[in-house]
């Protein structure tokens, strides 16, 4: 019933609008003018509206920067993030003035030069000097940004330190699993065909390096001020490991290993004080569309002192304890290399990661 009524009302409205328009246009024609010709009054009004809306828009932009100031991410909790934040500020300081200068010119010109029959526009079709200026100036500014940007990027993407702690982040619809490499700081091989029962990561328990690996779900703990070298995997579709507080993101792609390394610099405790929020937690989100629960594929990250971290990690069972693969492995260890060859091609092994570096 409401549907029907809506249709009736809308139809009547449209017809009414049509009639009003027609009357308006006819009355214009009676006065001998085309009702749709743009008049001097229109030009003045619209020019003034450009000014009004334009200033309103600029005020709105300033208001937005002000309004969101305190809602942005807190200071970077990773070492490289401090540098990218700096780069971001510099970039903003380049584009914000450009935004205001060009908009003020646009608004002012539109307002000032509205059509008046007695005026004539200035015939000005070309000026090599001006055109050179606005080719060269942006070129210089952009070259600076490019050099600054690329050098920051190269620093971030340089190979991880030898002693960085290796952690695997394993994505699947719709959760994350972390795997610590353990005492030997080497992840045991894994392969998607080995996924079975409790062995959700498909770790190859015949690999000696796998025995001391430890798995974390729900919460990922990291020691402060120690570089972490992440290896990312996915078992089904592309996911993306996004840790905004650490200014870190890397896709997790089935069939290959990706990596990223960073050094957390602020513990969760400190950040809670810093943000004045006792509930604050670092988070890992999925940032590549991956299915129905993409929006809720998360994990909490806890950064703590190395001591606390070690205590936490010690409390965890090793994979050998969890899956009971130790006896096989002791045997397999000396033949680790042979095992790689014998293994299914599809298996990912962390030694082949170097391919990713230039």
């Amino acid at each position, binding site marked *: 019933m409401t549907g029907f009524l809506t249709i009736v009302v809308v139809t009547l409205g449209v017809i009414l*609008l049509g009639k009003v*328009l027609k009357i308006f*246009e006819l009355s214009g024609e009676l006065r001998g003018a*085309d*009702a*749709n010709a743009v008049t001097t009054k*229109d030009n003045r009004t619209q020019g003034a509206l*450009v000014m009004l*809306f334009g200033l309103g828009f600029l005020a709105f*932009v300033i208001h*937005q920067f002000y309004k*969101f100031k305190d809602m*942005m991410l807190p200071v970077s909790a990773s070492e490289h*993030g401090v540098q*990218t934040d700096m*780069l971001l500020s510099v*970039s903003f300081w*380049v584009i914000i003035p*450009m*935004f205001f200068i*060009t908009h003020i010119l*646009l608004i002012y010109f539109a307002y000032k*030069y509205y*059509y008046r029959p007695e005026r*004539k*526009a*200035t015939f*000005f*079709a*070309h000026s090599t000097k001006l*055109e050179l200026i606005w080719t060269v100036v*942006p070129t210089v500014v*952009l070259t600076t*940004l490019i050099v600054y*940007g*690329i050098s920051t*990027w190269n620093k*971030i993407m340089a190979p991880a330190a030898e002693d960085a702690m290796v952690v695997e982040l394993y994505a699947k619809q719709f959760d994350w699993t972390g795997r610590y490499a353990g005492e030997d700081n080497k992840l045991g091989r894994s392969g*998607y*065909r080995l*996924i079975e029962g409790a062995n959700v990561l498909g770790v190859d328990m015949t690999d000696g390096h796998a025995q001391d690996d430890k798995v974390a779900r729900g919460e990922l703990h990291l020691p402060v001020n120690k570089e972490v070298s992440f290896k990312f995997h996915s*078992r*089904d*579709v*592309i996911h993306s490991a*996004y840790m905004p507080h650490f*200014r870190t*993101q*890397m896709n997790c*792609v*089935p*069939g290959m290993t990706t990596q990223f390394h960073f050094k957390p610099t602020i513990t969760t405790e400190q950040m809670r004080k810093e943000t004045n929020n006792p509930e604050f937690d670092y988070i890992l989100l999925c*940032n*590549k569309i991956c299915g*129905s629960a*993409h*929006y*809720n594929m*998360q994990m909490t990250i806890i950064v703590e002192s190395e001591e606390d971290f070690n205590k936490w990690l010690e409390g965890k069972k090793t994979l050998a304890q969890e899956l009971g693969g130790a006896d096989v492995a002791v045997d397999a260890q000396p033949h680790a290399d042979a095992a790689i060859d014998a293994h299914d091609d599809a298996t990912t092994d962390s030694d082949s990661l170097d391919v990713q*570096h230039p």
Partner: protein
Amino acid sequence: MAEHHDNHHHHPHHEEGFLSKWVFSQDHKMISKQFLVTAIIMGVVGMLLSTMFRLQLGWPGQSFPILETILGKWAPDGVLDPNMYLALVTIHGTIIVFMVLTGGLSGTFANLLIPLQIGARDMASGFINMLSYWFFFLSSAVMFASLFVETGPASGGWTVYPPLSALPQAIPGSGLGMTLWLVSMSLFIVSSLLGGLNYIVTVINLRTKGMSMWRLPLTVWALLITAVLGVLSFPVLFSAALLLIFDRSLGTSFYLSEIHIGGQALENVGGSPILYEHLFWFLGHPEVYIILLPALGITSEVISTNSRKPIFGYKAMVGSILAIAFLSFIVWGHHMFVTGMNPFLGSVFTFTTLLVAIPSAVKVFNYLTTLWKGNIVFTPGTLFAIGLVSTFITGGLTGIILGDSALDINIHDTYFVVAHFHIVMGASAIFGMFAGVYHWFPKMYGRMMNKNLGYMHFWLTITSVYGVFFPMHFLGLAGIPRRYYSNTAFPLFDDFIDVNSMISVFAIIGAVAQVIFIFNFFYSIYKGNKATQNPWKSNTLEWTTPVEHIHGNWPGAIPEVQRWAYDYSRPDKDQDFVPQDVPLEPGEEAH
């Protein structure tokens, strides 16, 4: 060719059947109108889809009975289903990007303006031109039909990355819905190639006497380069789609490797989803310029005509179109900085990407200088063209941030990207399209659109565009990912609940504002005031054709071109415009 044309004009009034005049027309003007009306219909569909998912984003989890009425089982109790949310986002993006802003924008204006502005009786091949439209129509129809599939339409985002798009186990939309998506896109690519080749051949071969390349209006330059971009890049998308079809249906492993899904290990090994991303973005980035360049060309024309001033730096404008087009083929990797591709490539793509800002800056400054000391007639078209300059600046500047690989790490795939591309591409291209429709409506339909409704339409539209997309920059900087069904799973994002509701309110205002346009458009086709031959006092050749459309465009000989298109307000002339077919006076210098 010339003879063919002369034959043509001896019998311009031959009788036509209903079908060949209105449906299977080979006349470029009719085909242009067919493209436009189809695009408007698809535009309405795309916009309604976005309004539906904006309801969910603005008021997550709240019940909207209207959603259940429209979507049935996909919105039980009026709450949108997460899978359907992703499907709506996907089809919204696909329809707007391809059907409205590629097929619709190029199809309408290349068809209308290329022959009329270069002085040709029609496209090089009317038949191929007609096919181009009908492939476009079929493609739109299939895409629309996919909305009604039992398992839902394609849901992997408009970029449809595999494996998500390849495996129905991963998301229900990757079943029949995705198949239809691929069918529709394949038809679309055929349409686009047929159209593009025709546009290129026409511009190169059918220019009237005196119409040298340096006398082409900037609209034609833009449409020509757009067609070249399409012809060079759409085939690559086609290969990407073909390999995806193979992976989906024939069990190949181009994009699939080592997948364990639904409790089962798949046989595929050795493929790479990253290969798909490379192929997709090799089209994907030029695609954004395929969308944008026609809008920029229209803006050049509309701003110059209505400022009663020559476009400033004509050659620089052409040069920047060429530079942008060239660069657009070597920047695709900026969509892939965090895919794990070699970091060295990241540096290269940062370098090439930021270079794009140089020709973009040249264009902006040239528009500004064209307005400077002009005598600006504010038609609704002028307002939309000025609006485009604003959105192009706002959106282009944030490209400088996204193009920096080190910065993209933290904002890739967040709402910052959504803000960037909606403003720079979505809003700019739509504004360009509106500017074109208001400007050339008298040429297309022989009547005027109502100016006051036009003004209202513009002010409501630009207000809602910025109201919707400007705050999204900050959502992105705060770390909110795009393509999320709701942000409520993270307390971190609770601060933004009100912002999201406000954005949705603006989205609804924006949608309602388009009703004004649609009413004005269809009302004016039948009831608008009769147009005069050259209502905007413009220089270009299309305004020398009669108001009533005839086959072959000019009743007599095709006019010869004597000068460039931008002789507005010449100091040596009383009248503030000199059409392109007016001969130089003795002693007058050509520009």
